[in-house]
């Protein structure tokens, strides 16, 4: 019985099956698709912290798979992460790093730092050489101040005052480039983020439905799920419909007088 301790798993992607997959694809086998989020995700730094925003549509090719999914993921009480790309990859990688951050917090007794989350994410993504298709906007406030970063699937990162990712990033970035300034207030920040996401929702097919916002400041985080619902679903109302007068075209009118046709007959009153 050798070894009480588990050997650490040899990390990294196992390329064993890639050759087989390539051969099968050549033979004409259609690879199963995976759900890509299509997406508009944004973040900006304002006066007291960071604001993150995301749309809520998840697409599977041309089909909307989820009309109200959550793209802003919890990393730590003071750090949140928006994810674009393959939904399973963004979920799995943010859950994994969130778990690692919790263990780190217990070991150090301190609040997690955004750069820690950033480094854990980029190391993981780099070791998988871009096969983990997760493009993230990571934001949070820690003891060193507010931070906003973007992380690309191959493992590179940027540090920015405002950032957008996803298929709707150009639409959202155009809003940021024209309206962003330093020292925004909380209300201005939320408004600008909502505007940017709405630009993505209305101008990009891969983004849609509602706007999720997350405001992170020193000591407080507010997750505003469905902050805006610019695409309400209308269902058949059980109360029935009301039509305004003139909505229906009248083809002909015939008036029949009923009063001359009425017969008044004397009779017994109805029994109670």
């Amino acid at each position: 019985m050798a070894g009480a301790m588990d050997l650490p798993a040899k990390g990294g992607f196992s390329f064993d099956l890639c050759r087989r997959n390539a051969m099968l694809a050549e033979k004409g086998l259609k690879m199963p698709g995976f759900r890509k989020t299509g997406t508009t995700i944004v973040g900006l730094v304002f006066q007291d912290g960071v604001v993150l925003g995301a749309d809520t549509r998840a697409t599977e090719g041309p089909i909307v798979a989820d009309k109200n999914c959550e793209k802003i993921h919890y990393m730590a009480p003071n750090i949140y992460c928006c994810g674009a790309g393959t939904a399973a990859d963004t979920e799995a990688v943010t859950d994994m790093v969130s778990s690692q951050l919790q263990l780190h917090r217990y070991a150090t007794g301190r609040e997690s730092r955004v750069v820690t989350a950033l480094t854990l994410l980029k190391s993981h993504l780099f070791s998988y050489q871009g096969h983990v298709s997760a493009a993230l906007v990571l934001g949070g406030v820690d003891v060193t101040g507010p931070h906003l970063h973007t992380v690309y699937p191959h493992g590179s990162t940027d540090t920015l005052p405002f950032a957008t990712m996803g298929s709707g990033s150009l639409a959202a970035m155009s809003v940021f480039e024209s309206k962003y300034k330093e020292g925004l207030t909380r209300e201005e920040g939320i408004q600008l983020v909502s505007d940017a996401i709405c630009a993505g929702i209305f101008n990009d097919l891969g983004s849609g439905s509602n706007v999720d916002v997350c405001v992170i400041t020193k000591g407080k985080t507010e997750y505003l799920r469905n902050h805006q619902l610019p695409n309400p679903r209308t269902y058949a109302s059980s109360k029935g419909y009301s039509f305004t007068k003139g909505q229906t075209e009248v083809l002909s009118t015939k008036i029949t007088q009923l009063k001359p046709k009425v017969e008044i007959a004397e009779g017994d009153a109805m029994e109670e």
Partner: protein
Amino acid sequence: MGDSQYSFSLTTFSPSGKLVQIEHALTAVGSGQTSLGIKAANGVVIATEKKLPSILVDETSVQKIQTLTPNIGVVYSGMGPDFRVLVRKSRKQAQQYYRLYKETIPVTQLVRETAAVMQEFTQSGGVRPFGVSLLIAGYDDNGPQLYQVDPSGSYFSWKASAMGKNVSNAKTFLEKRYTEDMELDDAIHTAILTLKEGYEGQISSNNIEIGVIRSDREFKVLSPAEIKDFLEEVE
């Protein structure tokens, strides 16, 4: 694990059916500083002496009571370094459980997994049993719970228990004082009094540690100021 010369288990049975290494491990526990735990109706309290080898040691750097998950805490009697290893492993297991089931780990599950680790070290090659007994206190959907885990890997659920140097006196004291419907604040007072019984010297807010978990399910280690308040109430 490494050297094949030690791939046999060092924990072997004696002719009388005992595992002598585990007995010795329990002796190591028995010579450690006293720790105790009390399960109240609305929470659990665990406490321990914090006797430092010299007045020059910075007591703020020593923390004997540790948090495993937001709603589970642990204290020990025995060897500090062995305790640290177990805490690290238990925290990791709690996180793995959450990743797998998306449910915060129930107290019994964490106790079971920690006990399984301790048992592994009594039946593996080239390792020795842990020289600690743990008192795990938690509050989950099954209410407040208190468990003791021994170096052999056996675990028991207690209403109140003590371990370490002064175990027999402490247990007798607890047996007398324990009531089923005790409130948590009473339990904290009782814990302090029990520690006081066996303490050589004067107890103060700097040489004991107390951890509590109430119905809010947040495990907290009390600060020296909070301990001071409780001490004053007890006087």
